[in-house]
């Protein structure tokens, strides 16, 4: 009978298409919303991803990587003295305005890495070399920065180009590739010593201390020890990542906005599919009544409806997921839209689709449970 159920479903091409399209639409909305949410959240923690350090130490009030509460330079030395720490270097991060040669301004995220070790340097260099940072007034710009600067200048920007940061000259000595940040401005890398000169002078300048581990020491334990001995906030890389993510979830409307998209996707999917499936059952009322009259039990008829609904759901889910994946690849390639499609996202949407299918099937089952087989004898 299950084969018959599928044949009945596939036989009504128009209805089948409509049922699938509802699920496809719902899958796209929900998966896309989830992927955008994960993408945005990953962008909020971009600096952590780009810098890559086992332990991050910050002002005790800091909860996320975008929060800049400067510390004293001597704090790096204090961290270095804690048991289990093999090295500790300063990191500077702030948002600045770069003035281009045509007078136009471009917002950038200035990152100052340790001059001696270059810890926190960009992982992939597209042009030039990291060592060039040791030359006077040198900066490394990201590929996205090249794109933004070139747009404003009207010509391709590359190595040797100059611009101003707070009236100080900056010379491009390399182009790197890093993940884009949440604030939208491109990253600009230089040494810590030079970064504090580019930035407006404050009493304290150091944003974070990055620390490494001695062999045989655990990151969590060492971070707790740093906190206890220095009074500063110390996070492992993973802890800082999740602390940043949770801060944005708690303090911004992003989850609500994207949650609404996902909810609308679910509601639209459930409404369209439920209605279409119910219409499918209604149109087949006499045939289903005939099957009941011929001795098919309500349970078996219900199982047939569940099979039809789940088949539609899985087909629509597969197509929807395929569309989102293709779209996502294009978005990732463009680098303009945050997009992270996790398997957990797919699994949750798959579960939501199953719920939609069950709702649809239950509407049909409620109808056939009430259906009197005697209906087939009425003209």
């Amino acid at each position: 009978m299950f084969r018959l159920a599928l044949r009945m479903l596939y036989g009504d091409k128009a209805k089948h298409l409509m049922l699938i399209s509802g699920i496809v639409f719902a899958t796209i909305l929900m998966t896309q919303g989830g992927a955008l949410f994960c993408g945005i959240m990953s962008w909020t923690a971009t600096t952590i991803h780009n810098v890559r350090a086992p332990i991050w130490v910050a002002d005790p009030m800091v909860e996320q990587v975008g929060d800049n509460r400067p510390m004293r330079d001597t704090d790096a030395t204090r961290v270095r003295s804690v048991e289990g720490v093999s090295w500790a270097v300063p990191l500077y991060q702030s948002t600045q305005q770069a003035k281009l040669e045509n007078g136009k301004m471009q917002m950038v995220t200035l990152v100052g890495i340790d001059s001696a070790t270059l810890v926190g340097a960009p992982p992939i260099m597209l042009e030039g070399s990291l060592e060039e940072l040791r030359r006077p007034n040198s900066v490394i710009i990201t590929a996205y920065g090249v794109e933004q600067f070139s747009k404003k200048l009207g010509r391709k920007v590359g190595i040797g180009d100059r611009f101003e940061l707070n009236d100080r000259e900056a010379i491009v000595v390399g182009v790197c590739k890093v993940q884009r940040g949440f604030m939208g401005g491109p990253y600009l890398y230089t040494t810590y010593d030079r970064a504090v000169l580019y930035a407006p002078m404050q009493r304290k300048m150091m944003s974070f201390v990055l620390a490494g581990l001695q062999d045989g020491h655990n990151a969590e334990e060492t971070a707790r020890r740093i906190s206890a001995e220095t009074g500063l906030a110390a996070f492992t890389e993973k802890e800082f990542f999740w602390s940043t993510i949770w801060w944005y979830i708690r303090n911004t409307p992003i989850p609500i906005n994207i949650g609404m998209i996902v909810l609308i996707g679910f509601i639209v999917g459930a409404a369209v599919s439920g209605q279409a499936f119910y219409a499918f059952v209604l149109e087949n009322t006499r045939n289903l009544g005939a099957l009941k009259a011929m001795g098919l039990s309500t349970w078996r008829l219900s199982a047939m409806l569940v099979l039809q609904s789940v088949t539609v759901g899985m087909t629509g889910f597969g197509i929807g997921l395929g569309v989102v994946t293709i779209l996502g690849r294009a978005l990732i390639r463009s680098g303009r839209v945050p997009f992270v499609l996790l398997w957990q996202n797919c699994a949750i949407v798959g579960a939501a689709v199953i719920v939609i299918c069950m709702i649809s099937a239950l509407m049909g089952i409620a109808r056939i449970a009430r259906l009197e087989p005697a209906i087939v004898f009425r003209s």
Partner: protein
Amino acid sequence: MNATIDNKVAGALELKDLCKSFGSGLSYTPVLHKAHFEARRGELLMLVGPSGCGKTTLLSILAGTLHADEGEVNVLGHPLHALSESQRTAFRSKHLGFIFQQFNLIPTIDVAENVSVPLLIQGLGNREARRRAVAMLERVGLGKRAHEKPLKLSGGEQQRVAIARALVHNPPLVLCDEPTSALDSENGVAVMELLREAANEPGRTVIVVTHDPRIYHYADRMAEMEDGRIFRVLSGAEEIRTHHPAF
């Protein structure tokens, strides 16, 4: 008055003092009022009467798809009035064949699949069910149309498919609701020839609800209904012709 049958031969079904009404209060409508009759194995019995006299309700109760308010329904030795819903469902799948006025063929599956439905309900495998369905279609002259969708067939052909579906699992009781009302004379005759042939098979009973006088002569007996009762049962062509000279 209720008719009784004097010649009781191996009863296929027996209805005793059946009562059935619908609605309550102002909308209360009595449909069957102590209806009583019997049918034998190996006969084609027609149930006739004017519209609204309760024929379809009686057929539904016979089929076990509707429950009588009062009375007894014994079909092929099974007391339908005492069976649960699931027992009646199982009973229908094994013992009854149905032919509906509007054919009720599933339009999205092919003719052979439609015919195989009763076998699939009984749990037979797809391949064997289809093989038997095609063989039954051969018997009703539609073997070559097995792969076509029902809507590509004429009304007469669709009703022949419905007959094949009703007979494919070899049920001892076949219930037909106005099988010729949607057909022209030629197709009506073809359909009744098939039903007559089916009734001739040993141990089988065919009950035809109709008000089509063109087919009265196919009946072995005729039960006439009026106002929710069976008021007369006619036996044999002569007696039927006497009371219904038009056929």
